[in-house]
């Protein structure tokens, strides 16, 4: 088991389509996290930026970009990229520096300014890039992969379109209570069913939007936290950033094919399940001890998949768990009390950080109308393109 690090401060720039640059969103979130921590920017010994591919060169060196925007003060800098898992990589880098004694207080920032419509690869002819190839050869957008997973669940587990819609209904109800969410309106099953099909069988309201947003954390050693008056801070006990095991037999973004299992038997667990497993093992905590979970609901069907991959229920039982109300606020294990990506839309490098912000508010008892009573342990889960695991376990 590794030592804990403290979450001293959290901050978000509200999600939306604001039409401004990612630096502004990140700087706003960073200042909010510093204020929440009760620290000055000069108290920060290291800054870790989660990169965005949409911000030109400054987006590729996000750590330095945010440090400059906040005013150069000489902090150590790190910039990381792992697609949707960039935020978890940034948290992992910050934690490693704290546990190694390289820095006492680290600012973690991620922000994105998303384009309209489908995410698309950068221009040029790049036949060696699987992400470019899947668009070029197949026109396979992200929602196409979500459609494949959804249809597979329907065939294997008997999930229905109404099951999927009920995930949206649940998350929209929570998002309506969250001042940082982009969509703050309740949604009905009928509204989901009436929205346009994007990628059979999924409809517009089954699929998360792409958003502008920014998220930041101030992480520190427990000793630093105690010195600064935080006697019982929320603590991060595990950060899982694992890669898959060969052969990976679930067709994943952005691949055109799975690994072949002709020569080697598939691993016991799917990649997604192994991400959570690594976090549980590192924390010495099991799924039965969780108070809440924030999972990456890129689509409604994918949220159901996470229930099983996190071990909240057995394989094929996710729709039943949902329909029992177990994953709604007040249930046994509320999932996406923030409103999830259904209510936020994805701001790629900020999202995994925002998940930890939500856990922190919930674990502190500061989540307002969406507060989960008595929350003590939470998990986040996410998966980045190209084989990036992302899961954080935090506790009070």
């Amino acid at each position, binding site marked *: 088991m590794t030592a804990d690090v403290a979450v001293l401060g959290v901050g978000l720039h509200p999600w939306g389509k604001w039409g401004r640059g990612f630096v502004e969103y990140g700087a706003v979130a960073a200042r909010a996290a510093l204020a929440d921590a009760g620290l000055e920017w000069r108290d920060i010994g290291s800054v870790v930026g989660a990169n965005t591919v949409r911000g030109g060169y400054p987006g590729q060196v996000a750590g330095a970009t945010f440090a400059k925007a906040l005013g150069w003060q000489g902090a150590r800098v790190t910039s990381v990229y792992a697609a949707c898992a960039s935020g978890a990589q940034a948290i992992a880098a910050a934690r490693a520096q704290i546990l190694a004694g390289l820095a006492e207080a680290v600012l973690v920032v991620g922000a994105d300014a998303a384009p309209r*419509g*489908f995410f*698309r*690869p950068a*221009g040029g*002819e790049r*036949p060696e890039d*699987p992400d*470019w*190839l*899947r*668009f*070029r*050869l*197949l*026109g*396979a*957008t992200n929602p*196409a992969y979500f*459609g*494949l*997973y*959804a*249809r*597979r669940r329907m*065939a*294997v587990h008997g999930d229905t379109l109404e099951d999927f819609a009920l995930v949206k209904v649940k998350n929209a109800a929570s998002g309506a209570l969250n001042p940082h969410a982009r969509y703050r309106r309740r949604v009905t099953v009928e509204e989901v069913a009436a929205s*346009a*099909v*994007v*990628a*059979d*069988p*999924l409809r517009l309201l089954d699929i998360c939007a792409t958003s502008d947003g920014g998220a930041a954390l101030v992480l520190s050693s427990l000793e630093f936290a105690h010195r600064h008056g935080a006697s019982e801070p929320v603590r991060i006990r595990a950060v899982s950033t694992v890669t898959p095991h*060969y*052969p990976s*037999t679930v*067709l994943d973004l952005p*691949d*055109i*094919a*799975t*690994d*072949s*299992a*002709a*020569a*080697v038997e598939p691993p016991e667990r799917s990649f997604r399940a192994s991400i959570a497993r690594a976090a549980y093992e590192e924390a010495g905590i099991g799924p039965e001890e969780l108070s809440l979970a924030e999972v990456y609901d890129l689509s409604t069907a994918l949220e159901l998949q996470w229930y099983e991959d996190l071990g909240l229920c057995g394989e094929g039982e996710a729709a039943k768990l949902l329909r029992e109300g177990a994953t709604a606020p007040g249930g046994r294990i509320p999932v996406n009390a923030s409103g999830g990506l259904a209510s936020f839309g994805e701001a790629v490098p900020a999202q995994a950080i925002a998940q930890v912000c939500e856990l922190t508010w919930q674990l502190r008892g500061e989540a307002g109308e969406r507060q989960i009573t008595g929350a003590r342990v939470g998990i986040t889960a996410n998966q980045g393109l190209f084989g990036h695991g992302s899961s954080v376990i935090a506790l009070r």
Partner: protein
Amino acid sequence: MSRTRTPAVAGWFAGEGDAFRLLGTRCSACAAVFFPREDTHCRNPGCPGGTLVETPLSRRGRIWSYTDTRYRPPSPYVSNPELPWEPYALIAVELESERIVVLGQAAPGTAAADLGVGMEVEVVPGVLHEDTETTWTTWNWRPTGVGA
């Protein structure tokens, strides 16, 4: 003017008609199969590394899952923005002997509503798009028992 037929990606498929096949590679040391082809190193972490030899994949498989594209995909997918968008289905197919799932466009005329998980399909030559000089070719999946 007749167009030249050119694969949209080099070395991934070959042959005409019933002889059309996807081309992967197989490791001579551990027998692992790769598609898209690996030509440099075997990716099996337990393999000391063997020679990678081109191998045609099974012609037929069963549908692992499927979906469709109701909206025009962005570049680098090529489509004529002046024509109304026509959705096509995407099919992920499990090949039994290779134990691999390969994604592809459905053959023209095959809609998502015609498909089901577990249904048998076969690989057939397809056209990705055409420009003034070139017909860019690809692979398509087509339910078996459907005529060309």
